């Protein structure tokens, strides 16, 4: 589990370990995810 900050509504939300996509629960923007470290996710781009 790691958190990312939605780039649209700036809400922090959690991302499943190793996930490659995630959706912001608040504004529903869908992202592709990458992992700079095994425990830290970041947004890679729009899904």
């Amino acid at each position, binding site marked *: 589990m790691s958190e990312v900050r939605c*780039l*649209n509504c700036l809400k922090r939300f959690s991302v499943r370990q190793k996930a490659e996509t995630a959706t912001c629960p608040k504004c529903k923007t869908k*992202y592709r995810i990458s992992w*700079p470290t095994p425990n*830290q996710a*970041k*947004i*890679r*781009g729009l899904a």
Partner: protein
Amino acid sequence: MVQKRKIAYINLTTKKLSQKAMPKKIRTMYIGGRGIDMYMLYNHLKPKIDPLSPQNVLLVGAGLLGGIPCLGSGRCDIAAKSPLTGAVGDSNIGGFFAPELRFTGFDHLAITGKAEKPVYLLVKNDEIEIKEASHLWGKDTFETQTIIRKDQDDENIKSLVIGVAGENLVKFANILTGMKNSAGRTGMGCVMGSKNLKAIAARGTTPLEFAHPDRLLEYCRQMNDMITSTRWSKAQSRWGTMIIYSNTNTTGLIRTRNFQLNRLEEGQDLEPENIDRYSIGTSGCYGCAVHCRHRYVLREGPHAPLYGEGPEYTSLGAFGTMIDCRKMETILVANHLVNKYGVDTLETGGLIAWAMELYEKGILNDKMTDGLKLEWGNEEALYEMITNIAHRKGFGNTLADGFKKAIAKIGNGSEYYAIQVKGMSNLHSDERPTPSFALGIATSTRGADHLRSRPAIDMYGLPEDLLEEVYGGPVASEYNSYYGKPRMVWWQERLYAVTDSIGLCKFQTVFCSVHAPQWKEFSKLIQLATGVEISETQLMEIGERIYTIERLFNLREGFSRKDDNLPERYFKEPTPIGLPVAKNKKIDREKFSKMLDEYYKLHGWGNDGIPTAGTLKKLGLDKEPSNLI
């Protein structure tokens, strides 16, 4: 201060060399690095000199804390009057030069005059020699460093060098050390070229002494832990500064096709993650635990084999989004070219993107570009333009003079398309949705510039109580807002001025992470390293003094409030695409003007942007020039 540090004066015309101990007063008022460089810039230059004349002074200043084992302490500040803008010329360079310079016993060099023939400076433990450099003239930046090492039979020499762009007086030629570390902006390489100075080589073995070595060592370790535990640094350690692209391109904050779009829609190949295809590992500057760049190898294709370092986020925009090139490989090749020729990546990309838009609009045509098809995404044209700029060939010669002259030459409404301030290109960032960033590029003392004041943490929507605690006054959490943003810019300006003066890396202070070291930690580092107590408040005042003397320099050169402005398009054209937070945004002229008023007021400057007599007195600037060094 326990450190017995010196400044050397070198006149290349008369070949006269002299040195002086750094007066304590200068240290406590301006610290080192950029601060002392700015003091000298204001003091040594007569107003309105030609930046390419022998009267201009090239200042090289190591940071006060250069050499300590933390926070990227290898930073060196290089200053002169800028041939690109006519304003403050100043550029900060990482790598390994500054500590090596300090090991020679010198912290600062002030170089004036002009050598008759190409020369380089060799600074070795307490001794400075002016050496013949005819055999180096015409060599690229990498070869130059290698040859100097061979000539001196010393692999440990660290050099600041110029490439052919500097020799050819390209107005935005840079100074390079190692494979990629550059004093990129404001044309410091052009000033070196104008002095016939090909390189400054340093090699020293003099110990750097500290007031409390054991405690300093332990505290430095804490500092490294502090920075590397931030989320930002972890990502940066992995993929370098390119990670900014993930946020800006996804959101729609990135100049695309010069300024027509604010996101590269099919920009997946430029995602930082793709550097893994070419990387053989990361690389760090002296004393850096973050290591924000990659060592990359191109093994295939017409440009292989090629080894380079980087690319920075800057190059992703300069040779990617701004000109609509969508391949990582293009970035790697172009990045290598600009480093090899010694020309600023950002200015080069900014000018080429502008030229491409002019070409599209018909303001430029094939005849004017010597038949070069300056079409979006034409990577071959990109490589050729870079080469032609560096060699001042054909249309490259027009662009090599920078925006001011090129606009005058091309005319025909071309100015409207130029995304520049005070004659210097903006980064590929699109500041229309972020008033704080917009104010920063408008007011920066060196022209459109994200490194003088950018409050990058504004992007995170941090809670307002936290922002108030950091910035010392109310600031809106939303980055679209104008509320409190001048305060952010003002605070960051002072912090970065001090960071550049103690000689630490900006990425390791409050730039992209609010949890990074700042005033308190800097004050403690200074105390442990030098034994001198400078409080947090005093550090802020030093930052203010440095920024104000830069302002005084620009005022003296004829700049005024009207130059603290944005390109017209920021007010007229709303952003066409992006996430809702970034779409359909432009800067409100009236609100911008109010921000400016507020910003001046925070500095203690009048509404005309001129520091008041009271402010000057308070900062001890009322008797400048004081000519202490």
